[in-house]
């Protein structure tokens, strides 16, 4: 009986292989769910990510290890509860192999367990990097192709120390990422913090009260974290209030390829920190930026670059396993190698599966054609690790 069962299984397995088991697998697509914001004022970010994902797909020739790529986009509407619901749908109804995307830390935190634990599906964050997931909530099914929230402002803080900035006023949106960002800059900045405001997120777009406080506090500089549409609003009101000539602005994630077409000259000369800049001199990045610009006549942003990397990370693991994604342990092990050409240059994964990577200082400038963009002016941090990985039980 045992023998019989074994024999049957073997024959069936062999039969499946010879009768086109492999071609059958080759035909079933690799399904990737992509959660981002495609409606509302922040939809421009989601669009930039979608364009980059499509470009990655095109660069891969539409196939990974012979299997076609199918990408299902879902709109989180910028709301944690909606993002969670959409993630659930992707895992349970569409039965995707991977879920990627996530701009917002609060959306990611709400969705994480639905994907990684209840769905046992691998999640790749293309942007959000909340401290909780780097530390105590770290998960074998979670990978980041971006950064941990604290890291970028930490790089900014380091740079401001070297520049001799004596005091700062800090402002950010009051949600998971905003809190991490301010914690990050406080971690490295050695000068005085003259004041700190976390504003209602995402409802508050009127910063007049805070700007009045800044005027009274007279700091050496203002540090802000206002992604997307909020960054546009802040910069407009900051210059309308006449502060631009009095207190210089330093930012993370608030002046980029998404916001510059709206901020225009107001942003000129403003410094920021980032792990990826469009002028990083590696081959894959040159190709990405050139192809993106050719197609869409605008610069890509780090949101897009990180999304492109998410797809390439998936591709690297699936190629190494010849398209066979059934053994999740093997998939995770392959992904952990980060064996792909990242647009920021090669990086390694830390124990919590966040990248160990460089951070650069960038300045908002006009390119030779008169288009607003950012360019690298310095390296602020080399091979930076996030400050939470030791809290992560994974080794």
């Amino acid at each position, binding site marked *: 009986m045992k023998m019989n069962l074994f024999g049957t299984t073997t024959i069936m397995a062999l039969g499946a292989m010879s009768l086109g088991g492999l071609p059958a697998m080759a035909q079933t697509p690799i399904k990737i769910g992509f959660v981002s914001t495609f409606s509302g004022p922040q939809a421009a970010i989601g669009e930039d990510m979608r364009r980059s994902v499509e470009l990655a797909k095109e660069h891969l020739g539409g196939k990974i290890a012979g299997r076609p790529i199918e990408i299902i986009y879902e709109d989180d509407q910028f*709301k*944690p*509860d909606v993002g*969670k619901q959409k993630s*659930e*749908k992707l895992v*349970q*109804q569409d039965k995707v192999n991977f879920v990627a995307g996530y701009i917002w830390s*609060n959306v990611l*935190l*709400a969705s*994480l*367990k*639905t994907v990684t634990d209840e769905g046992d599906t691998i999640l790749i964050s293309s942007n959000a990097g909340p401290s909780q997931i780097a530390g105590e909530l770290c998960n074998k099914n979670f990978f980041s192709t971006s950064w941990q929230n604290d890291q970028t402002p930490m790089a900014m803080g380091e740079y401001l120390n070297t520049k001799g900035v004596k005091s700062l006023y800090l402002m950010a949106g*009051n*949600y*998971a990422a905003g809190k991490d960002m301010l914690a990050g800059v406080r971690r490295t900045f050695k000068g005085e913090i003259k004041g700190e405001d976390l504003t209602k*997120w995402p409802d508050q777009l009127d910063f007049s009260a805070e700007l009045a406080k800044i005027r009274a506090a007279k700091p050496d500089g203002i540090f802000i974290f206002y992604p997307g549409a909020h960054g546009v609003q802040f910069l407009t009101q900051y210059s309308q209030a006449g502060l631009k000539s009095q207190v210089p602005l330093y930012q993370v994630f608030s002046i980029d390829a998404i916001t510059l077409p709206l901020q225009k000259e107001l942003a000129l000369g403003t410094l920021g920190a980032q792990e990826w800049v469009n002028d990083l001199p590696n081959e894959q990045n040159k190709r990405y930026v050139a192809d993106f610009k050719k197609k869409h006549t605008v610069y890509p942003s780090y949101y897009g670059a990180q999304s492109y990397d998410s797809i390439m990370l998936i591709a690297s693991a699936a190629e190494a396993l010849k398209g066979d994604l059934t053994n999740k342990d093997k998939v995770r092990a392959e992904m952990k190698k980060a064996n792909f050409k990242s647009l920021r240059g090669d990086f390694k994964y830390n124990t919590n599966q966040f990248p160990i990577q460089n951070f650069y200082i960038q300045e908002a400038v006009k390119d030779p054609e008169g288009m607003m963009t950012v360019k690298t002016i310095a390296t602020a941090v080399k091979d930076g690790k996030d400050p939470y990985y030791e809290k992560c039980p994974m080794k």
Partner: protein
Amino acid sequence: MIAALRTPRGLVTVLVLVVLAVLPLLTQAFDQRYLLSIGTKIVIWSIAAVSLNMILGYGGMVSFGHAVFFGIGGYAVGILSAHGVSSGWIQWPVALLAATLWAALVGALSLRTRGLYFIMITLAFAQLVYYVGGGLEAYGADDGLNISRSRFPGVIDLRNKASFYWLCFVLLCGTLWFCSRFANSRFGYVIRGAKSNDLRMTALGFPVFRYRLAAFTISGAFGGLAGILLANEGAYISPAMMSWVKSGDLIVIVVLGGMGTLFGPLYGTIAFFVLEESLPPLLDLGRKGWGEYWQIVFGPMLVLIALYARGGIDSLFGRRR
């Protein structure tokens, strides 16, 4: 039971209940886990809709803040769980008590007002709790909070989707049973009588205010139960679960299904969720991409229902005896 099958209404009701009872088996047979998730939400929302129907449908009290009980039930479970109290035997009674007390307080203050002011004051109290939820930094504020599900060791594991669904279904049946007892009791008749003419009921010597307050409080308790289940369904709480739009949805569901009927809220919830899930693909058949705009059809449907179809779905099955 057999007699019930002879009328269309009876037939549909039995059919719906049977399908709901075996739903986990169906979704497993067809490997449709997502349908079970939707089914669970339908059952939980039905409990809330039945509870709203007790005051809105039978009693004519237009409460525009019923989703607040989702929030109170959910946050009671979530806050206890965040402090390490994971036993459902403690969480659930506390949550029910919280919802009941809040309903009693809100009822006592707002049932003194009439008509429009009642609508607005119930809305105001719900908004108040909504903003308190958004202001609780320790419990995630607007970002919401992941919680662990209530534990009933040795009795039931709520992490098992099928068992959780059946638990919700049994509780829905219990709620329906209670509602039918309520509607046909002396107490229920006073509430129903006061809907059409509360002066007459007062003249007859019934303390209408106290009866209404009792009904409002009971309704709040069942709303709290739905909140407990909703928090356990997603293992997540956030102020969004008690936003005023959710309260509006609940009113829509009750009217859509048929106000003041026992099974109306159940039909209404099913119709609401089925429309939400099926209108988009249906519109997509017309032209790819139209599905995204399903509410442009759903909105005017509500207007038409309000104008011309007050009986709701229940009235499709013929006049009631």
